[in-house]
């Protein structure tokens, strides 16, 4: 191994990425929106905006509010629906030299399975990321991701509907994230990614109203990074499948913390909203770190 040329490639089950830096769902549109601002060929992959079976209009505005070192959002999973995604958005992504991961969501297990089936038939998809932070409409509306059994059921349904690698994206709004991680791993998940946003809220003291149209929103950005890192550390040590780290990563040093905690890859979310080229800078920064320390491969970054 040449010390000067670290190997940045990683594998997540049967999915290989040229490097561990991936754009996070909901913060990079369907890719094309960023096409003139970012060189996709430099990235490990992109996770597109969460897709449901039918198009969704999303939540009433206002949908955003800034908080200290963070962003609260209540977009409401606005998306074009799976058919329009495959027809109108996927062709552009196929032209990019990067892995395409499709984030999926549903109100009930059958919807997840049907989307996964459609993706299995489509060309140009490299993996599925299952967003289980959505309310389970059939059982009272608590998120699938807060119940290890419901999370396992979704995982099994998606696994049997597709031969693509399945990454289950975990919600941090639970007492013990490792319980959910173990449960989805047993159900056949190829990997887990974490964390999704932390549930929060803000009140406008002038209008005396909640700042968001939806009252509650998901907190992201640097404010959540220590929580995310702790959960990634715990999960890496609780399951045998690969763990993708997400949460407040804004530069290469942040990304390195997650890789040292044992994440096999990282996703960059809010930081892309603030600066579209962030992920490319992170790839460069990780490369420089590994070169200067003589670290041959990403897995060698991991600490005990």
């Amino acid at each position, binding site marked *: 191994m040449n010390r000067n040329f670290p190997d940045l490639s990683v594998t997540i089950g049967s999915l290989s990425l040229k490097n561990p830096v991936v754009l996070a769902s909901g913060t990079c549109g369907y890719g094309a929106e960023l096409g003139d601002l970012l060189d996709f060929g430099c990235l490990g992959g992109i996770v597109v905006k969460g897709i449901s079976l039918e198009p969704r209009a999303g939540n009433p505005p206002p949908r955003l509010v800034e908080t200290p070192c963070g962003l609260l959002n209540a977009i409401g999973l606005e998306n074009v629906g799976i058919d329009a995604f495959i027809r109108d958005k996927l062709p552009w992504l196929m032209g990019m030299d990067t892995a395409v991961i499709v984030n999926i969501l549903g109100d009930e297990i059958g919807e997840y399975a049907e989307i996964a089936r459609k993706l299995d038939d489509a060309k140009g998809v490299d993996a599925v990321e299952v967003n289980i932070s959505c309310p389970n409409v059939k059982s009272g509306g608590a998120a699938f991701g807060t119940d290890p059994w419901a999370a396992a059921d979704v995982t099994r349904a998606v696994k049997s509907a597709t031969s693509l690698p399945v990454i289950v994206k975990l919600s941090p709004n639970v007492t013990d994230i490792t319980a959910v991680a173990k449960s989805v791993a047993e159900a056949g998940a190829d990997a887990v990614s974490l964390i999704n946003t932390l549930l929060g809220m803000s009140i406008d003291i002038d209008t005396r109203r909640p700042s968001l149209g939806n009252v509650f929103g998901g907190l992201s950005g640097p404010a959540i990074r220590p929580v995310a890192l702790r959960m990634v550390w715990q999960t890496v040590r609780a399951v045998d499948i690969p763990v993708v780290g997400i949460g407040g990563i804004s530069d290469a040093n942040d990304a390195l913390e997650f890789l040292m905690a044992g994440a096999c890859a990282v996703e960059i979310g809010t930081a892309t*909203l603030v600066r579209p080229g962030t992920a490319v800078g992170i790839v460069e920064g990780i490369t420089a770190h590994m070169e200067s320390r003589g670290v041959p491969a990403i897995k060698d970054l991991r600490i005990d």
Partner: protein
Amino acid sequence: MERMIARFDEKAEIIEHCQAAEDIFVLKVAAPAVSASARPGQFCMVEVKAVGSSDPLLRRPFSIHAREDGGRLSFLYRRVGRGTDLLSRMRPGEMLNVLGPLGRGFRVRPDITPILAGGGMGMAPLLFLAEYCAGSMDTFTILGGRTASELTGLESFRRTGTRVLVATEDGSLGTRGMVTDVLDGLLKTLSESAGQCEIHTCGPWPMMRAVYEMASQSGIPCWVSLESRMACGTGLCLGCAVYGTEKILHVCREGPVFHGDSIRWRDGQ
């Protein structure tokens, strides 16, 4: 697929930064790439913090106020909160990241007389529009504010060749009253040729709504420049939604300039 005009995230040097009135500032930066492709009505996401700091996290959206020689752009802004306060402390020579030009700007037609109507900071995008139009056609610009001292930069508007009409709520300059009072008079004077006009407006929601309603009554097309809370300004987060008549609209991508007919005005902002 999504857009054809190139956008740039440019490290821009502050060339000039002056206080035009209490809480009103003009910021001039060197951003040659952004400047070269900018169109009137477009905006930029401007960093308002020290490099490396994550507080405040987000950039702030500002309309492009004017484009000047040498790849320079200026912004006209009001200090209203933490981000604009931090920005107002930055000095010439310091660097800022400026992402732009963003969104869809004003649509002007060569055969139609533009009437520009700005209230308060709503005048910001109109100077660029006046510069763009005034060389080749007759234009009118109506500017309104609470009081005379708020109406900075009237001279810059006059220099473009547009005819400037002013309204202040306290009567300290021009007509005492609102932009719509002046617009009403102008439309009456233009009566028969009003059909050859188009209105471009930016300002507080109630003002734009009143301008739009007046335009509709006269059968004149009206373009409105909207604001909403933004995280990215580039169409990534879908956070900048406002209600349209038919569907949710995204201000940063489908706007900020919309045809007045496409907005659901009763929902306010």
